[in-house]
């Protein structure tokens, strides 16, 4: 039906755009194996003559990058697990339970989606300070635990669960807790996993809040550590690149593993929002 020239043009353009998008990433990997002068040679050598693998070890030793990776993992993991658990609970209540003020609570939570963090960050910092949790793991974790997004998604999803399913559990004499743990949680599992991954990635990539709340170097997360390192040793370009490559790896692995599910849930969110 289509002329071959149309197909060639279409796939050619698609491939060109893909290559353009990949250039910065490929360059980062290639540059992390260059010497500092090789990085800015012209024309650029995409495959370095002598790959400098020692860039990785020297960058690793220059600052406590291992510690930062662990910090980011711990913070991201706790935020993802607790946030998704709390979000799923609230999502179930908003989707399937009747109670006073349900609509007010739901719309207030939707409204929080519209509030950008920079517009409330000073207040958040002061509250954290009054609680005495600044410059601590609690300070890194607690203020970012939950997002309206998780609740919105979970509610949206659980609304699709037929009431008869829950009712049949009640008729069989199960308590609400049993229904929740035996029916609702297993049903929510796939969405919880993809929400968990999105939340982890969000936390892993977050710079602004750690920058505000943490001063001690042993509490640095990866983005904060990278920023501080590059502002001190920016001229050590290849070390900056080596650490950047390491910082990307976990999120890329997570993305590739859960690719289908993540993209589907984003497509659904666009569709759901748009109606």
């Amino acid at each position, binding site marked *: 039906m289509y002329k071959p020239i149309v197909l060639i043009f279409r796939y050619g353009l*698609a491939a060109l755009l893909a290559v353009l998008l990949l250039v910065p990433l490929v360059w980062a990997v290639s540059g992390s194996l260059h010497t500092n002068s090789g990085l800015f040679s012209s024309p650029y050598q995409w495959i370095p003559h002598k790959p400098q693998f020692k860039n990785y070890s020297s960058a690793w030793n220059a600052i406590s990058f291992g510690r930062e990776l662990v910090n980011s993992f711990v913070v991201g993991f706790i935020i993802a697990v607790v946030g998704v658990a709390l979000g799923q609970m*609230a999502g179930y209540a908003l989707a399937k339970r009747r109670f006073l003020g349900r609509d007010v609570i739901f719309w207030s939570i939707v409204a929080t989606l519209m509030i950008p963090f920079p517009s*409330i960050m000073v*207040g958040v910092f002061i509250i954290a300070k009054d609680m005495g949790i600044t410059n601590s793991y609690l300070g890194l974790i607690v203020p970012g635990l939950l997002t309206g997004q998780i609740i919105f998604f979970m509610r949206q999803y659980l609304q699709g669960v037929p009431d008869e399913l829950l009712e049949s559990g009640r008729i069989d004499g199960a*308590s609400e807790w049993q229904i929740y743990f035996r029916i609702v949680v297993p049903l929510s599992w796939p969405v919880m996993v993809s929400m968990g991954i999105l939340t982890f990635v969000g936390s892993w*990539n977050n710079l602004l809040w750690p920058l505000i709340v943490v001063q001690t170097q042993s509490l640095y997360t990866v983005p904060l550590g990278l920023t501080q390192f*590059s502002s001190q040793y920016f001229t050590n370009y290849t070390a900056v690149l080596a650490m950047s490559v390491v*910082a990307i790896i976990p999120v890329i692995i997570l*993305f590739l593993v859960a690719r289908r599910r993540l993209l589907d849930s984003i*497509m659904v969110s666009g569709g759901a929002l748009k109606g």
Partner: protein
Amino acid sequence: MPLIGAQPSETGLGLGVQRRRRAGRIGRRTGGQVFTLALILPAVLYFLIWVFLPGGYGLYLSMTDASLISSPQFVGLQNYQQLLHSDEWWQTLWRTFEYAAEVVVPTLLISLVMARLVTRCRRGRAVLMTIYFLPYVVPGVVAALVFELIFQRYGLVNSALHLSLAWLTNPSIAMYAISIATIWSMIGYYVIILMAGYQQIPGELIEAAAIDGARMLQLIRYVELPALRPTLLFCTISSTAAVMTNFGTPYVMTDGGPSNATLTLPLLIYNEAFKYSSAGLGEAMAMVLLLISLLLALFQVRVLFKGR
């Protein structure tokens, strides 16, 4: 014949069983309320403490001379008056809108092309989607650092295009470099959303247009764009909000420099509150940012629910 106990939904229950069920249901109802409360309370408390309280407290602080160290004194609308008369403030506000426009327009155009290509490339669709979305999961700090290096005087961009521009130290072009990095970081998300929009266009519509002999441009102009209108509006507003509140890219690449050429609103708020410790003035700025975001959101809600 099943046992009655196993099938209570069957008719022919004894009176005693029915009474027990009713009692059980009443007990369950109060138990059910405790259960509901246990489900919703953590989330409600969380948002009260970490979103609404800081918001309200911020509004109060914006009318004080707070400094994060000393106790705040009420000064009324003085901070807002100071903003009205501050050239730096108006320039920053304008620059933030400029940044949004420089990112949003190309992002939407390119992601529209990409979404169309992905939809039409049957083979290799999964690979294309993966590559197009990939930059979106890359940490913003990493993207900013890589682009900062790419835009150096002897970096990849200049050497590939045979230029020798001082991208990040020339005030008249620094914002372009930051915009390009931002576009790269966020484009994947909009490709996916627009793809979802494309998939909702009925196939018959496109076939009918093809039978009528519509050329590609006509197809796009008269069939696809009208059908994508709501999705495009959603993308426009949400990307505008995302860019205006983006902190990481300008902070890492230039920290607002050279000579404030890339100083946007989130950076200014951060500097004011945490560097110069004038939290009151910073909060007044933050409240303006909040107001802009809420107006955008209101507009978005109107768009979403129009025609429902």
